């Protein structure tokens, strides 16, 4: 019985190691082209999501897509340097709540599915966005 538990844990750890990618996340996201496609998709979904659409009402879409793509390129190990505002400045005055942040993450997850990102790439990207939470909400 104890062996069985050990085996299951061991199996999950082994498969974990096998699927660990070695390339940069930037490449897994499909480089500049893939990142822009993803950002375009999530921007579209956010506009259609009645729970958070009001937060994007005044957004200049093309500028937003360009800067967010640049930021993701930068933090995922691509050849870019993010030139935009820091996360506190960028969300200043918006008063984004914890729930609204979660709705955007839900839209991002759908967008990542829609552009066909692997689970690994999705989770690696989410992991880079998690630390931004504190600087995005309640600004």
């Amino acid at each position, binding site marked *: 019985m104890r062996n069985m538990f050990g085996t299951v844990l061991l199996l999950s750890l082994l498969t*974990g190691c096998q699927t660990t990618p070695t390339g940069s996340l930037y490449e897994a996201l499909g480089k500049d082209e893939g990142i822009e496609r993803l950002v375009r998709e999530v921007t579209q979904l956010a506009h259609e999501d009645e729970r958070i659409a009001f937060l994007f009402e005044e957004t200049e879409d093309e500028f937003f897509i360009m800067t967010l793509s640049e930021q993701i390129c930068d933090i995922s190990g691509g050849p870019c340097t993010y030139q935009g505002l820091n996360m506190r400045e960028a969300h200043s005055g918006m008063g984004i709540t914890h729930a609204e942040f979660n709705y955007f993450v839900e839209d991002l997850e759908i967008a990542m599915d829609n552009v066909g990102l692997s689970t690994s790439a999705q989770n690696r990207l989410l*992991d880079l966005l998690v630390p931004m939470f504190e600087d995005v909400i309640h600004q």
Partner: protein
Amino acid sequence: LGAKVRLYGDLVYGKGPQISATITHKQHQDEGALVALGIPRHDDTELQVAATKLWVNGPGNRFWLLHGGLRYSRAAQLGFLGYGGASTDRKWTAEAAVAFFPTREIAIGTEYRQMPDIIPGIPEDDWKDIFVAWFPNKHINITGAWVDTGNVAGVGDQDGWYLSLQGSW
């Protein structure tokens, strides 16, 4: 019947785990059966303190959930066999669970739960299980598990399969 409060932290965004406390009051439906078995209590209140953390990029670039808790209870077999006697004989027991998510919709994990073994003459073993849960959408959860409950009501080495379908709206 119970109440759960989040005391500290955030499941995903906090630096540490999310800490929560739960108070539960449970009542057995068939008091007569418990009286016949000589079990003193058919309802009781218990306290649980738990720490839970979700990593979005754990081993294998997968979501991993780690959960540990302490429970202060005198329930026998979760209360299905009633509750222990004197007012002071609750015991602290520990429980832990670990799960990983091969995809966002599927969780595979294992749980271990100490049992207080509180009623003399009705031995109780710790519970262990391995589970697979599927969340096809936000509202539905289908879980299959293999559960080892050990000795239940004097019948040794009980284990079996468990399947549940849960909906929440």
